């Protein structure tokens, strides 16, 4: 995941470096010229006052004079126009990685704000400056309300109920089976409750998964009340001393009002400790829209991104977290039950900005 973005972030750094170097060369040349000018004009007594003001007028900004001054002290000031090209490329790179447009714009604004007017001492490299700006902008966007999932399970009253929501076909049921394995490895028992009473084959699917990982499934007839199934799951867990109830729900499009209302009902009846929103890493701009809708219907605590192995862009991870203000907790990275990884934003950003060489 994120291979494309990683390359592009690297080239953004280089672009800015180039712009700044160019500018440095120009500034050096101009400073020389200016110095010559000053030498010549320093003899007539009236001239020196006028000279600087003319120059600032020419450039219409703090421009040349301040820059000349900056150069004298070994600094170059980064200006808006230096960033225009590199930022455009950066925006395209973010969009190419499926970062949602408004989120991409926010990242750009943040990078721009951090870089413009920034003067670089000759001891730093431009690359470092840019890297810091990118790092901060990305961490700001990705890392929202990250919490220790395992600790929360450990500290919550048992049984802990976790409900999984999301649109059709993103991999909720598979994620539940994986989560059950993940919990098992850490010493927590779990029971699966099939709240998908709608889709054909859903019950068979979860039962087979449960059999593979050796867990109990609570299921009702197709067409039954999903809230009741999950409720039964909780009762079963209480009676049998099971730690965690993993409640599946039918995939639904966020435009289906009836199904979204059903989700609210599950929330009311079961009152889960956590609701996890499942979406796929291959999702594009729409990922944000549906995450919002699901969060509205039944407030989510975090997200799981599946099919992260299918895609090298993964911008959905960046956008969903930012827009819902809920962290991405796990990534699904394959078809095996062990293919569930905890998501660490700091590590991700570090990885994104790591040098290629």
């Amino acid at each position, binding site marked *: 995941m994120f291979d494309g973005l990683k390359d592009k972030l690297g080239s953004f750094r280089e672009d800015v470096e180039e712009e700044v170097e160019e500018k440095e060369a120009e500034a050096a040349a101009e400073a020389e010229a200016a110095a010559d000018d000053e030498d010549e004009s320093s003899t007539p007594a009236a001239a020196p006052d006028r000279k600087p003001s003319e120059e600032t007028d020419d450039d219409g900004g703090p421009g040349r004079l301040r820059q000349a001054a900056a150069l004298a002290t070994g600094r170059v000031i980064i200006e808006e126009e230096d960033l225009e090209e590199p930022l455009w490329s950066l925006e*395209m790179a973010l*969009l190419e990685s499926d970062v949602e447009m408004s989120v991409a714009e926010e990242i750009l604004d943040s990078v721009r704000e951090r870089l413009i007017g920034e003067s670089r001492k000759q001891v730093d490299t431009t690359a470092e400056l840019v890297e810091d700006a990118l790092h901060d902008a990305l961490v700001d966007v990705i890392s929202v309300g990250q919490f220790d999932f395992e600790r929360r399970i450990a500290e919550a009253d048992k049984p802990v109920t976790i409900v999984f929501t999301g649109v059709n076909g993103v991999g909720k049921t598979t994620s539940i089976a994986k989560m059950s394995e993940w919990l098992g490895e850490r010493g927590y028992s779990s029971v699966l409750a099939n709240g998908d009473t709608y889709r054909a084959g859903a019950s*068979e699917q979860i039962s087979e998964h449960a059999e593979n990982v050796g867990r109990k499934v609570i299921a009702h007839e197709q067409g039954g009340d999903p809230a009741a199934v999950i409720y039964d799951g909780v009762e079963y867990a209480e009676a049998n001393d099971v730690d965690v109830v993993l409640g599946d729900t039918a995939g639904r499009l966020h435009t289906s009002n009836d199904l979204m209302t059903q989700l609210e009902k599950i929330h009311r009846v079961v009152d889960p400790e956590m609701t996890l929103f499942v979406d796929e890493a291959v999702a594009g701009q729409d990922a944000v829209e549906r995450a919002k809708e699901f969060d509205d219907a039944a407030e989510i605590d975090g997200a799981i991104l599946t099919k992260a192995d299918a895609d090298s862009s993964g911008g959905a991870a960046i956008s969903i977290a930012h827009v819902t203000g809920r962290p991405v907790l796990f990534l699904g990275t394959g078809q095996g039950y062990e293919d569930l990884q905890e998501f660490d934003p700091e590590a991700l950003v570090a990885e994104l900005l790591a040098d290629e060489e």
Partner: protein
Amino acid sequence: MVLDNLGSSLRGTMDKLRGKSRLDEDDVQEIVKEIQRSLLQADVEVDLVMDLSSNIEERALNEEPPGGTSARDHILKIVYEEMVEVVGDSTEIPLEPQTIMLAGLQGSGKTTTAAKIAWWFAKKGLRPAVIQTDTFRPGSYQQAKQMAENAEVQFYGDPDAEDPVKIARDGLEATEDADVRIVDTAGRHALETELIDEIEEIERTVDPDRNLLVLDAAIGQGAKEQAREFDDAIGIDGVTITKLDGTAKGGGALTAVNETDSSIAFLGTGETVQDIERFEPDGFISRLLGMGDLKQLSERVERAMQETGDEEDDWEPEDMLEGNFTLKDMQRQMDAMNKMGPLDQVMDMIPGMGGGMMDQLPDDAMDVTQDRMRNFEVIMDSMTDEELENPRSIGAQQVRRIARGSGTDEETVQELLQQHKMMDQTLNQFQGMGDGDMQRMMKKMQGGDGGGGMGGMGPFG
């Protein structure tokens, strides 16, 4: 629906150009930027967006608008043509015996699509069968079997077998007397080499007449790579976009079509087996430009009328396109609409109602609208035949009578009449509309714009 954002934002930009006869470079650049944003937001792949927009920019700057055409119409035409260029025609699906294989990512909706396509062929009078070869995902056999039952088509699968190639071979034998065989495969993604090898083998065994790539409307930039890999492995003849009833714009399909040099075959718009539409490029583009989809609409009207069965059959939906739009037509239309399905889906197809219009409506507008429609029905029930045929002849006294008779108030009756007038005018504009008249229509649609115009469109607005 698909890309309707482009429609609305484009219209916004275009409005600024009203009255201009020449475009300067700045105008064009602004429009191109807007087009780029919209396409990117619709998940069209970045390179494709850049190609498209640079073509549009170049043509807009270099081509002289034909005499009498405003700059705005000229740009619209260019945008339209460039989009048509990418989208191309609908994938040709002959109504004859054939084998179709479906491929795609996990969870893109292949199994549901298989049953839908089977249902579609069954409606066309052919005998389809679905062959399920997914041995990997638990529950896939049961799902496919049930979907095939819902579609009332033949089904072959083997829950105990492990080799998809063998199931495919056995399935073809078992369904020998079916006309159309649809082979469903397990979900896989382009980077799973073993699974890609497997589908190549299934492909060799099945030897399908066409391979369709099933794509979730929400897929992002990854569509390009997925499409390319599947195309390299088995060759893609067409794309089916699923889950278009969500809010995703489906631009990934454009990318896939461009990448595989194929075309779009079907659209999936809901969870039941009937929720499938054949892809129509004209409708797609006009919906895309916010012009509604007349063809789909009249097809739906006809289907709804057919389902209504033997109700009076002296009514021709075409009549209303020919300018004889009476209150009776409106009554029947409302009646048929109730049978056509969710109002907002139908709305999307009505000229001038899709795209931008829909965005401006408050979320609960549809519910209010349903109420209004019921009110209108009651009012029309209180009218005489003469009044229904000739709504313009209704005077103030009659309005009072009708209001009393229907238990509503005069204001609502007036609203209904106003509504009818608006619709009549709108429909009049479509008479004899050919391809070249598109711009003229756009102009007219926009002329009536701005709060009152469309907002007053009564039961639909």
